[in-house]
């Protein structure tokens, strides 16, 4: 069975149907990308999966558990982390305090310390700046902090929303390398990206969204060579 299974999901904003009945799944260990233009509903889907939004119908199943109606803060302790669009680090808190927030659901201090060491090893820049307020970091550093913060909950799956948005090309490459690292450590990744080329480069599978519907899906390599995808999303 898939680790994350979404069935016939519909989400409304007031009268507007933003997600018009979609199905997708993410298997353990995969990197799955959701690609599509602005307004296609990618962020809405992630928000619904992690419980920030309630769907009007459909189900979300995570590790065999129906989490459709579960409050968002409880989903975190099941092993799902979400790096939100625009990073949303706590600007008034230090880098270290932000990372501790990520471990909010965990109790064992020893284990938290171990994860913190792991995060600092992976992101040496965060350790250098651990006492600095998160709001004073550069965009790329904030993205690293948002990812580090998500890792602090020791998740089995990470949802990442536009991690490359607004970053310089050097940072974009670095962020995608980090996502590959995270994945190779055994964490499953559900990635939402406008940078379709980069996303398809690191993903195993992908779904293409258009105005609230999945129009294409399949292996990332296959989609990369799909004429329609090339034309619409890869600029070829």
């Amino acid at each position, binding site marked *: 069975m898939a680790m994350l299974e979404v069935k016939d999901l519909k989400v409304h904003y007031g009268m507007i149907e933003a997600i018009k009945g979609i199905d997708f799944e993410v298997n353990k260990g995969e990197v799955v990308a959701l690609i599509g233009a602005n307004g296609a509903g990618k962020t809405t889907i992630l928000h619904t999966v*992690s*419980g*920030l939004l309630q769907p009007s119908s459909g189900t979300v199943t995570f590790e065999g558990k129906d989490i459709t109606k579960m*409050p*968002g*803060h*409880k989903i*975190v*302790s099941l092993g799902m*982390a*979400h790096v*939100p669009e*625009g990073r*949303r*680090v*706590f*600007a*008034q*808190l230090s880098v270290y*305090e932000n990372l*501790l*927030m*990520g471990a*909010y*659901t965990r109790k064992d201090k020893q284990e938290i310390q171990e994860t913190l060491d792991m995060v600092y090893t992976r992101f040496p820049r965060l350790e250098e700046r651990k006492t600095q307020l998160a709001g004073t970091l550069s965009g790329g550093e904030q993205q690293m902090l948002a990812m580090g*913060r998500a890792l602090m*909950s020791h998740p089995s799956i990470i949802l990442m929303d536009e991690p490359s948005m607004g970053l310089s090309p050097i940072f974009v490459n670095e962020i995608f390398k980090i996502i590959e690292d995270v994945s190779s450590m055994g964490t499953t990744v559900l990635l939402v990206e406008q940078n379709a080329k980069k996303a398809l480069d690191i993903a195993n599978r992908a779904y293409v969204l258009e105005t609230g519907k999945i129009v294409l899906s399949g292996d990332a390599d296959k989609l990369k060579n799909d004429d329609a995808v090339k034309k619409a999303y890869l600029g070829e």
Partner: protein
Amino acid sequence: MSFISYLVNGISLGSVYAIIALGYTMVYGIAKMLNFAHGDVIMIGGYVAFLTVSGMGLPPVLGVLISMVVCTVLGVTIEKIAYKPLRMASPLAVLITAIGVSYLLQNIALLLFGASPKAFTSMVSVPAIVLADGQLTISGETIVTIVACIVIMIGLNLFIKKSKAGRAMLAVSEDKGAAQLMGINVNGTIALTFAIGSALAAIAGVLLCSAYPTLTPYTGSMPGIKAFVAAVFGGIGSIPGAFLGGILLGVIENLSKAYISSQMADAIVFGVLIVVLLVRPTGILGKNIREKV
């Protein structure tokens, strides 16, 4: 000497404002709403202390504790019934609801306790301090109020900086969605904030009525408004701001009463607020609100 006496009394009055202002500022910081019923929770706190101590003859400390428990339950209940269903509603709807709750509490008190003022006996048994050969007397109420305010400020700061629930409050005040993604129970944190604010309101009610010993269903409304002014003055959402705003307001009010005119004192207080807001729209210690681009 009389100046020092006015100043100390101003600090004491300001300490009460500061304790009330904390309730406004914490709730604003975390739930982004103005709880205009907060002042009336003070009044209920006063009545509970009055009934338990003067009516039932319980020791004052126990009366204060019971009053804190009642106000905490009341605050959390108000939040759950009146404000929580409006979490997604427009700020105006929430504001109007808060004003409605305020009138509701006043009228319930009117129904239960009647309109005639109750003579509140001071809950403070600390003796007055006489200084400078009897030229300066500081009452026990004044001392206890100032000490209580300092203890509350230090305690609250430690709670927010050191405890997990306190850090959750900081996170929720900055970004509810991101806080939820950390696994923080946002509704629970908001309820906790109301609980703390209301417990403090009970203490403020007892201190206020001990210093100004008449208790009516409207006792809480003017101090409530002044404490709201203090919170805005110091920078709403900021805890040190509530402290600073409260003390300044109390001192300005008392000195105006002493040296300018007791009728004009309130006008002067609100005038100073207008000037401060013209110069610093976010209040003295308020954060600049950054627009996301």
